């Protein structure tokens, strides 16, 4: 709240000097409660972009209005969007961690013609529900299918999948199973674990019994991935010769320190990796200037690139072009490497990296060792 207050003050003070009204972006994300990390990561990403590229685009100042949605609450997301559009008169909406929240605002943004950039919510179909949506995150198909292909190519023949029993988990399971079996592998057991699962030892005992070449895991980043990866090493699966593959959630950069040495060697696939060089180096440096103890993950990058898209939209709108039409096909200068907004789906096409957890200068990092180039959203069929 304090922030919104200071922004308002700054706007009042600056008003006489500024030639044009500022552009308002409403950011809907969780800033308190169990998912507060997401809001913090988004805010970091936004602030890094403003620090690196300035706060003014085409003569207009970018201002952000943050609204706390708390969690997966479509009704609250919808009410907040309504309020931001009607009362605050925002020009753009952004944020959205959870699929239901994004789906809930689709009719609203279509009707009010408010371009909306999704920083996370990763279900493929979202971008189809409104032509005002642009997405800078990923979809589970996008990162899972390349992993399954890679695993099959590495000589992994049998896999047990273990996923959280909710929509994204089922997506990951389906994507892995279909791709892996098409590539000649066999999924010998599919385990769906309730989100409330805290102790994964019995799951690991089950995997040990099936004795596959590898276990594939997908769980939401946070306490579940922490406990799952710990259970994998603690129950002796590495010694039993059972490999580990998973999506990037499993070794998310914000959880690596807590995971500790046990995470070394875990192999995951994602569209970002903390150890990437190039643009990522400059990005990380700017991030440490914004908040000294900040850790970048794919949410920070999703928000950073999201603001990049919004800036392009603002510039286009100043010239009288439709903002969303203007960013179709737009190439991003992203910490994640080469990426572009797909002209047709409005979802980001990007490299997918197979990464391994390694130690670098006392800290754990996800280091990419295989790059699958220019992967589109694979989940739309």
């Amino acid at each position, binding site marked *: 709240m304090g922030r919104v207050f200071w922004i308002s003050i700054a706007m009042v003070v600056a008003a006489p000097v500024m030639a044009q009204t500022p552009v308002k972006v409403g950011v809907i994300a969780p800033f*308190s*409660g*169990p*998912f*507060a*990390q997401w809001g*913090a990561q988004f805010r970091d990403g936004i602030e890094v972009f403003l620090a690196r590229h300035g706060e003014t685009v085409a003569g207009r100042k970018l201002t952000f209005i943050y609204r706390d949605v708390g969690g997966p609450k479509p009704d609250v997301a919808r009410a907040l969007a309504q309020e931001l559009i009607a009362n605050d008169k925002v020009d753009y909406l952004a944020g959205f961690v959870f699929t239901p929240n994004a789906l809930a605002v689709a009719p609203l943004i279509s009707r009010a013609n408010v371009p909306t950039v999704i920083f996370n919510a990763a279900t493929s179909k979202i971008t189809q529900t409104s032509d005002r949506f642009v997405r800078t995150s990923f979809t589970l198909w996008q990162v899972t299918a390349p992993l399954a292909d890679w695993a099959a190519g590495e000589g992994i023949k049998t896999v047990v999948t273990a996923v959280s*029993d909710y929509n994204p988990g089922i997506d990951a399971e389906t994507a892995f199973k279909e791709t892996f079996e098409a590539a000649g592998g066999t999924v010998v057991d599919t*385990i*769906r*674990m*309730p989100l*409330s*699962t*805290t*102790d994964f*030892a*019995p*799951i690991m*005992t*089950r995997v*040990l*019994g099936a004795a596959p070449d590898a276990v594939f895991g997908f769980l939401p980043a*946070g*306490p579940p991935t*922490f*406990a799952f990866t*710990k259970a994998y090493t*603690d*129950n*002796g699966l590495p*010694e039993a010769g059972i490999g580990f593959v998973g999506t990037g959630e499993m070794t998310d950069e*914000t*959880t690596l*320190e*807590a995971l*500790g040495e046990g995470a070394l060697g875990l192999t995951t696939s994602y569209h970002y990796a903390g150890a990437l060089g190039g643009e990522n180096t400059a990005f990380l440096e700017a991030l440490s200037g914004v908040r000294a*103890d900040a*850790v970048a993950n794919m949410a920070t990058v999703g928000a950073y690139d999201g603001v990049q898209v919004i800036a392009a939209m603002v510039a286009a709108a100043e010239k009288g072009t439709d903002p969303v039409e203007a960013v179709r096909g737009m190439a991003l200068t992203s910490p994640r490497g080469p990426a572009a907004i797909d002209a047709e789906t409005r979802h980001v096409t990007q490299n997918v990296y197979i990464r391994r957890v390694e130690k670098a200068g006392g800290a754990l990092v996800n280091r990419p060792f295989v790059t699958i180039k220019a992967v589109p959203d694979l989940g739309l069929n």
Partner: protein
Amino acid sequence: MVTLASVIVDGLAYAMVLFVVCVGLSVTMGLMKVVNLAHGAFALLGGVFVHVLAADHALPPTLAIALAVVAVAAIAALLEPVVFRRLYGADPLRQVLATIALVFLAVASVNAWQGSAILAVPLPEALSGRLDLGFRTLPVHRAFVIVAGLFLFVALYALVRLTRWGVRVRAAVDDPATAESLGLNTATLKLVAFAGGAALAAFGGIFGAEILPVDAAYPLRTIALYLTVVALGGLGNVPGTMLAALGLGFAETFARFAAPTAAPLVVFGAIALALLARPHGLGQR
């Protein structure tokens, strides 16, 4: 056979984590007659203090854990006269409201102080590594939790049931007027018992962190788990809490092994049946 033995070991280890994490709440709720939803907040603070002392300030983990438990007990001792003393014997709804408010305060404070990512809770070097049981390996940490759980069980039972101090605390709670007329300082007794319960919570939070990782939202995530164990065991009933932890630990572990997707159904179904048969908990005679 090996798999069965393995699942039994998993079940025992999980049960003991449940016991260590929940017994403090059972003690406060049963002895003090306060529906203390803030139990998880004390557990969270324990974990956060160890993180700050050991991970951020590089203190030896053993020292950090000792300091953290003492600090949490001290905070509880400060809160008792300010908040909890007003709640003894109050309407349960007021107790719930007041203590859930503490939970939100704790969550927001930790979020502001340490952020909301999972916090590493370093444990002594001696607890890392694995024990070879012949048919499988067991993390030393889990073996320690099993032993600590059994030790706490015996110690608490003896303290509450067999010592003069235990008799006094029970007297102070059950019949404060008579206890005071007999010259007992009931206020001090309750203060000490409450701080003790909070110290147990911190201990549970720290040593349970491998299964219930510590982050700002910890108390919100764990409330249902605590209340399930405590309700199933019977309020304030240490043997009952042990029975409940064992029952829940084994049921959940077997269900997760055999049919992970149906596990919550099996477990909560079993709890419902158990409470139908024994509405006051498994420990009730």
